[in-house]
């Protein structure tokens, strides 16, 4: 737990260092935006990937145990994956807005 805290603090310091020492305001802001976007999209994609993987793993195990339930499982799997994927797409949209609009 302590190691994670130290790791995140170090990472945050490294990420803001270029902003703190940058001479030009606009460049610094753009740099901060780029870091924030990369971090946000990386986190969102990673977590959504883990969630989708867990969902597909559960469905594959269920179908392997009971192949007759494949039809019902596929519908539920599509629903779950669509929910998770829409979260990833929202994250992409928010990050693009952060990068280009704000």
């Amino acid at each position, binding site marked *: 737990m302590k190691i994670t805290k130290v790791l995140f603090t170090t990472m945050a310091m490294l990420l803001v260092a270029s902003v703190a020492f940058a001479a030009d305001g606009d460049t610094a802001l753009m740099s901060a935006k780029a870091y924030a976007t990369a971090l946000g999209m990386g986190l969102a994609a990673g977590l959504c990937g883990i969630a989708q993987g867990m969902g597909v793993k559960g469905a594959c195990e269920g179908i392997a145990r009971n192949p007759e339930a494949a039809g019902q499982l596929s519908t539920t799997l599509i629903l779950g994956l669509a929910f998770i994927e829409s979260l990833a797409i929202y994250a992409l*949209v928010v990050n693009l807005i952060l990068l280009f609009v704000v």
Partner: protein
Amino acid sequence: MLEMINQRVEPLLVKSGFDRPDVRILVRNQIYVSLGSSLVIVLVTLASRWSLAFAAGAVLALVNFWALARVVEMLIRTQGGGPRSLFVIFMVKMALSGLALYWLIGVERVPHWGLIAGLGTVVVNVAATGLVQVGRKKA
């Protein structure tokens, strides 16, 4: 009216590879929600920029959902030779969605609330279908 549209849409979905009736209903509902809401909003607001952003988001969501349903259907159905084509479909879909969103937000600067609302049509459809399923199980 709806029955007539259903009868026209169903053969198209079967031809596209959606063999299971449950999945077909899900994809069909998504088509109705995305295209129907887009059409109504575009007509009501007289093709304003916001409504066009909504329509773009809804179409993007529909294409994504279609590809996702297709991938899952193939994953469940095909036994051999599937993974490569599934991987290609998935990667092409992700790349095209990313490029389309970049073009809409970064280049065209569409109203982002319209785009987000359009993308939300998938969530509306999935939530409604999930609730109907829960209701059927309880009944």
